[in-house]
């Protein structure tokens, strides 16, 4: 029983971590008033960059760094277009996803079928072998711990630090922030880069720890689910964690049920996480007041300092 529960929890952590990483980044980006719909593309680029680097160097650390860097690089393109040239954020985000899918498929063509060892997990003698809590608390790989550190760090940053206050202020009213002398574009650039790096990490987790391998479009919509999670959480870090683990659990269950051989078409079960996303969006969005009070007021609006 304990073993089954342990396995269940470990599996849910494994499916939830990429969602949590990517959604944490997007939360910060959106809090600054920038809507980057290119999470899916940045995750794919992060996945292939991490995987290719790992294969080439054999270093998991370099692989993870490359994944984050590649995601941030794509976010830089997004920022240059939307912040520098005031392009429509929705359209640019879609372009990012299309481009990221194409580039990752091209770059990854020679990596299909290659295998790498999964990211090493923590192993503390005496602790990791404890029943249940041992593997869950002390037996994860570095990216899982990083996802928690990032979420906690983001929560602290946004609500306890002055820089986080400035970031929220820019998302709430870019005109007022500009009048006070804050660099709206500079702050948004940093927020977008952070979002890109986190999405890249989410992708790298998939190709280095979850699978670990590369396949075309291996994110399978997780970037979009991460975007939905930010809305689901109403831009609040704690609820982001709840949402990521809820969706991770649904994803895992859809694999699990297929393994049981119940007489339901497997496609119906595979579609479950996507249907659940729609349902979750509906449940949250119907409460317009909550969305209005929590959504950054300038989300998606271009800013040009004319005067």
């Amino acid at each position, binding site marked *: 029983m304990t073993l089954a529960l342990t396995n269940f929890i470990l599996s849910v952590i494994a499916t939830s971590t990429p969602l949590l990483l990517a959604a944490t980044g997007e939360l910060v980006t959106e809090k600054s008033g920038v809507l980057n719909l290119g999470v899916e593309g940045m995750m794919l680029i992060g996945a292939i960059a991490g995987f290719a680097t790992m294969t080439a160097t054999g270093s998991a650390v370099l692989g993870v760094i490359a994944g984050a860097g590649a995601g941030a690089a794509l976010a830089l393109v997004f920022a240059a277009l939307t912040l520098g040239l*005031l392009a429509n954020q929705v359209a640019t985000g879609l*372009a990012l996803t299309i*481009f990221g*899918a194409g580039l990752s498929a*091209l770059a990854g063509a020679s990596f299909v079928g290659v295998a790498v060892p999964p990211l090493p997990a923590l192993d503390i003698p005496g602790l990791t072998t404890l029943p249940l809590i041992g593997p869950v608390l002390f037996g994860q790989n570095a990216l899982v711990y990083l996802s928690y550190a990032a979420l906690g760090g983001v929560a602290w940053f946004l609500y306890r630090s002055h820089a986080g206050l400035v970031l929220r202020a820019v998302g709430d009213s870019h005109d007022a922030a500009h009048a006070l002398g804050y660099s709206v574009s500079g702050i948004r650039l940093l927020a977008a880069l952070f979002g890109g790096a986190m999405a890249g990490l989410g992708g790298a987790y998939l190709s280095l720890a979850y699978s670990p391998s590369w396949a075309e479009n291996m994110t399978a*919509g997780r970037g979009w689910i991460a975007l939905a999670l930010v809305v689901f959480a109403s831009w609040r870090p704690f609820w982001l964690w709840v949402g990521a683990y809820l969706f991770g659990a649904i994803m895992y269950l859809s694999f699990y049920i297929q393994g049981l051989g119940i007489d339901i078409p497997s*496609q119906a079960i595979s*579609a479950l996480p996507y249907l659940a996303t*729609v349902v979750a969006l*509906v449940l949250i969005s119907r409460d317009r007041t909550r969305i209005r009070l929590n959504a950054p007021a300038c989300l998606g609006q271009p800013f040009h300092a004319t005067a």
Partner: protein
Amino acid sequence: MLRLRLEPRGARSAMWAAASPLLAVALTVVGAGAIFALLGRAPGEALYTFLIAPLLSPTGVPELFVKAAPLILIGVGLALGFRANVWNIGAEGQFSLGAVFGGGLALAYPDAPAIILFPAMMVAGVLGGMALAAIPAYLRTRFNANEILTSLMLSYVMQFALIYLVTGPLRDPQGYGFPQSALFSDSATAPILIEDTRVHLGVLFALLAAVGGWIVLERSVSGFALRVLGQAPRAARFAGFQEKRLVWLALLVSGGLSGLAGLFEVAGPIGQLLPKLSPGYGFTAIIVAFLGRLHPLGVVPAALVLGLSYLGGDAAQIDLGLPSAVTGIFQGVLLFFLLACDVLILYRVRIVRRGAAPSLKIPGAA
């Protein structure tokens, strides 16, 4: 230190609205050449293979129209919706459901006379696309749910549904277990318009949709209402245009046209239902809509450009041994450049020295 500075023009520049897509295409060709060079191919030769050679074969130009037809149909609908800030990005799924509805009819009544069966299939295709688009419309107007995410999620769901259908209820019993339906009968196949080519009735309907879309958008009160809603939602309310009705309109029109595109694809070039019906037409049409200036007539040349990227991708795969993903990169880069060039419509770009008065003008910026 040099940097760019944007100065508002005050009014839209009609010249740059027209020139920006051309500049973007030109820059994309240069960019594609650079990417080919990075991949170790001679850029000149690779560009020739990708962009010119596909048109030189006898079937080249007709094939281009065959590829462009679904892009035009979907792109016209998306352009109407995007003008109203209704972001249907689930056209891929609506395309599939249209194909399933129409294709289902074709498989159920293979012996019906074409004069009845084919129009019925077209209607079914439109209804299929509308049915899937109606869900995000309902969820947005009733529950305020973001249609970008819901329409896209439904595309994933539709992909699984399609696999289920062609491996289950609609699988060809004589098909040796392959995941595909039976071939459509002759009366369920789209009529060919030009002999010895694959140019089918859908091409004609695509051009009609472009003209129809133009009339709706530029001349009709509903099209005007869509444009007002997109630019100034409060002004739309002031004018008495109801947002909910317009959201439904935009999603049903784009869904219906996507469904029709799917029907023509299965009743035309494909001829049966398969697990994968589209090489991403629903997403490429988003680029088509933007490259065409969100203008139904502009969608036609834009669809030809992006249709060429599919032909070129195939050619690059066969002749140069490059992955077909080159097409996706070309499309992404094109949209990047387009969005970048569009800044010139509303702004003058000046190069200034940091801290100094404006010095250099960029050509055409006056």
